[in-house]
């Protein structure tokens, strides 16, 4: 549905820079291929000299000396026909030559600070010219890049800086009016991340106004309103990179010529880089450039899987854990086929590197009996554990690009040559993470997978769902228990004020929301009538507009919470033959109206400590969902997949658990059975137990209460669950 308006970012098949020396340098842009700047600007003039650290020159001298010596040895060995000596010295010559080449190539690495600092003058002059007050902040000036790349980056950076100063940053008077400090800040920052160099140009100016982009796009005839409305924020903002796109009302001398950001985009693509924009209207804009490292030296940890060696960039490494053989069974556990480890109060997904690479398969999910080495790595915000066979050295390595045939391998960020001349691949922790989901689902045999699916299906609780339609061919499900009322209204009853929609309702005004405001779904078609789903959250009522109600159904539905996950949508399932998205009413409100949501107060026990909750739930989907909002409310969470497991956890952690949140329908030991056992145990007789279920109904509730459950709530009603939990904690009768 989205049009391919964004220029595709394709890694270039770059020509090598003309070098006199025979060893080709791969993937360096030919300087002649870059557009010449309109005016000469600081940093972009191809300087014919460069600065090199004396230490580097010393090592070059040393290497040259060694090469001479070894060459002499080689000549002697050849002259005397001493074959073994020839082989040995030849190998040594090979090694030294590689090292020499690397050292020479690294003389080309220059710190970005050189380029960044030149902008001080530029910013000062421009600010004066435009009557604005701007401070330039520079971060990461020590980050190094190859000389050719640095030269090529000068132009694009200049353009972005000018753009930020001209369009982004407001005049002091306007800033003051907006409640911002009159002194604006422009930040140039650089850092290494996952094998790339990230350069950001951030201004705390007016941000990028989507409406202006839309208007401009319409005026330029780039696209029609329907498609514009359907675009996500990211897609809209990328329209700026189209040729001729300029939002300046008048063309100033500095920018706004319409030559624009598309040139920046093209230049960066030539270097094999990408550019992204992040913006908050009225607050700031960030242009983020990512450059693949053609040449960079990064510190790494070398690890081994079998007899193969891999390099893990130090920047991605959070922690190193060695679990002694005796503790393996205790600390590492399998949930289904996925391996996890309890670590600092949460569950860390663990995967064996060999498994990700498709090497000799470990028995899926079974921790091995010997001691294990786990690298806790960060893929963005997400942490996970990578299990390897052995930890080797920590080394600084030169990052080399992999050839074009290997660009599709997500697990690798590049390769390097180790001291012994052999190649080691550099791991891409973000790429590995995307592969992990596959590793979790992959089973050793098809039969096992089938059985797991069957089990999941029988385990899933029955749900009462309201099926509704938004756009003509998109179906959504809303948990019936969360709905207060359903109203059918004529379209003209909707009032618009300040971009928000309302309707008169029961003596007051009801705020109205549409799914497409938050989630990436097709907008509702205009029609004469529509339906409004009224529900309550944060103490107020709100209406969700949909085009029509399809049906109410009670079904055992298995939800997939990965494929369609986005704000406002909890997951998806196939219902009545259609892909149906499960609406997250609370998430919808939290995203569309962040000020509305009353953040529950941080939960505390009567003693003022962080409370611990045991959540017992057999469905991954609900467990994940409940765990996330409970943790957000400040609870420490322990989990169990069924009643039996819950008992084990209680045995282990007994005293520390303040409250139990349990599902009813579970295998092995269900919620009622669990409650009965706990009530018969003097240690847990008074422990608050709240049942969360999908089935509401007086009979079920009565049985629960009779068994000893303190309260009986609906799984997806997070407001009520959190309120009830807080209430029970306050009445905690356990000392």
């Amino acid at each position: 549905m989205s049009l391919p308006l964004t220029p595709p970012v394709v890694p270039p098949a770059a020509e090598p820079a003309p070098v006199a020396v025979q060893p080709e340098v791969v993937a360096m842009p030919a300087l002649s291929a870059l557009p010449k700047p309109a005016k000469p600007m600081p940093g972009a003039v191809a300087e014919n000299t460069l600065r090199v650290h004396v230490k580097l020159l010393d090592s070059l001298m040393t290497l040259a000396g060694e090469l001479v010596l070894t060459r002499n040895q080689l000549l002697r060995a050849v002259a005397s026909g001493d074959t073994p000596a020839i082989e040995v010295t030849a190998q040594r010559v090979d090694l030294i030559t590689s090292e020499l080449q690397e050292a020479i190539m690294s003389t080309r690495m220059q710190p970005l600070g050189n380029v960044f600092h030149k902008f001080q003058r530029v910013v000062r002059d421009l600010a004066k010219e435009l009557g604005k007050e701007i401070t330039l902040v520079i971060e990461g000036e020590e980050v190094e890049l190859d000389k050719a790349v640095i030269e090529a980056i000068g132009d694009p950076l200049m353009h972005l800086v000018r753009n930020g100063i001209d369009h982004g940053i407001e005049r002091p008077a306007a800033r003051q009016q907006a409640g911002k400090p009159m002194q604006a800040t422009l930040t140039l920052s650089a850092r290494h991340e996952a094998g790339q160099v990230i350069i950001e140009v951030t201004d705390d100016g007016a941000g990028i106004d989507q409406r202006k982009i839309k208007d401009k796009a319409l005026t330029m005839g780039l696209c029609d309103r329907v498609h514009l409305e359907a675009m996500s924020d990211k897609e809209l903002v990328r329209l700026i990179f189209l040729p001729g796109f300029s939002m300046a009302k008048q063309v100033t001398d500095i920018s706004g010529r319409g030559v624009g950001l598309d040139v920046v985009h093209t230049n960066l693509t030539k270097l094999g880089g990408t550019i992204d924009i992040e913006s908050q209207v009225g607050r700031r804009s960030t242009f983020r450039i990512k450059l693949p490292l053609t040449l960079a030296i990064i510190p790494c940890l070398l690890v081994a899987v079998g007899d193969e060696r891999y390099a893990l960039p130090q920047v991605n490494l959070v922690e190193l854990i060695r679990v002694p053989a005796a503790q393996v069974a205790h600390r590492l556990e399998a949930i289904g086929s996925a391996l996890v480890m309890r670590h600092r109060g949460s569950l860390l997904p663990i995967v064996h590197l060999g498994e990700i690479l498709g090497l000799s398969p470990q028995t899926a999910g079974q921790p091995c009996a010997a001691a294990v080495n786990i690298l806790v790595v960060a893929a963005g915000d997400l942490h996970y554990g990578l299990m390897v066979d052995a930890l080797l050295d920590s080394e600084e390595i030169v990052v080399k690009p992999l050839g074009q045939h290997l660009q599709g391998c997500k697990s690798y960020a590049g390769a390097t040559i180790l001291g012994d001349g052999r190649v080691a691949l550099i791991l891409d922790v973000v790429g590995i993470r995307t592969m992990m989901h596959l590793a979790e689902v992959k089973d050793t045999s098809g039969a096992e997978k089938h059985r797991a699916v069957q089990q999941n299906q029988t385990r899933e609780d029955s749900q009462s769902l309201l099926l509704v339609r938004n756009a003509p061919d998109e179906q959504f499900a809303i948990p019936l228990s969360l709905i207060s009322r359903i109203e059918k209204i004529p379209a003209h009853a909707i009032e618009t004020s300040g971009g928000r929609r309302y309707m008169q309702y029961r003596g007051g005004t009801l705020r109205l929301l549409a799914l497409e405001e938050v989630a990436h779904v097709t907008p509702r078609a205009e029609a004469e009538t529509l339906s409004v789903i009224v529900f309550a959250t944060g103490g107020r009522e709100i209406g969700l507009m949909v085009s029509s109600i399809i049906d109410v159904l009670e079904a055992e539905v298995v939800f997939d919470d990965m494929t369609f996950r986005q704000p406002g949508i909890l997951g998806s399932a196939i219902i009545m033959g259609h892909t149906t998205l499960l609406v997250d009413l609370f998430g919808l409100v939290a995203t569309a109206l962040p000020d509305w949501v009353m953040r529950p107060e941080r939960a505390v026990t009567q003693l003022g400590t962080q409370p611990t909750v045991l959540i017992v739930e057999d469905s991954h989907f609900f467990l994940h969902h409940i765990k996330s909002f409970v943790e957000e409310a400040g609870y420490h969470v322990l989990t169990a997949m069924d009643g039996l497991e819950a008992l084990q956890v209680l045995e282990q952690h007994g005293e520390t658990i303040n409250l139990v949140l349990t599902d009813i329908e579970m295998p092995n030991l269900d919620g009622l059975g669990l409650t009965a056992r706990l009530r018969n145990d003097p240690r847990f007789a008074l422990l608050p137990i709240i049942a969360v279920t999908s089935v509401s109904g007086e009979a079920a509730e009565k049985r629960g209460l009779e068994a000893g459950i303190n309260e009986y709530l609906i799984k997806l009603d997070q407001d009520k669950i959190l309120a009830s939990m807080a209430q029970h904690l306050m009445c905690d009768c356990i000392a």
Partner: protein
Amino acid sequence: MGQMPAAHAPAQVQEWIVLEVGNVLCGVAITQIQEINKQIEMTPVHQAPACVRGVINLRGQIVTVIDLRVKFGLLPLELNEERCIVVVRWAGENIGLLADRIQDIVVAEAAEILEPPANIGSVTGTFFSGIYPMEQGLVAFLCLSELLKYDTQVRMHA
């Protein structure tokens, strides 16, 4: 300097290296060859496309090695002293072609090169730009651009 397709070959003479790949003799134009290596330490790249045998260190550069046997649908062989890697230049990078062994060098006149017959299998057929009769048998000259091009869709799934 690419290979001249048999159809528009001017009257020229070219040198070709003949490689043995299974029971096929392939030719690679000398002008496209950077160098030939033997007994190189190969690092396997798991999860790479099947035809990629691994990568090697070529004077500080990481070079992808394509196993010609796999390209032709044969099972790969173990590496030994006979195996050779022919390093060619393609699309701005160096790529290694792994063959069973080097057979010979031939000097071929353009006029003697024949069109590949229609009955070569459809996939492997596009790899060859011409056939050259020799005493040892027919040598199929490789068209590097066809041999080494990769489907970007496939690339995403690698």
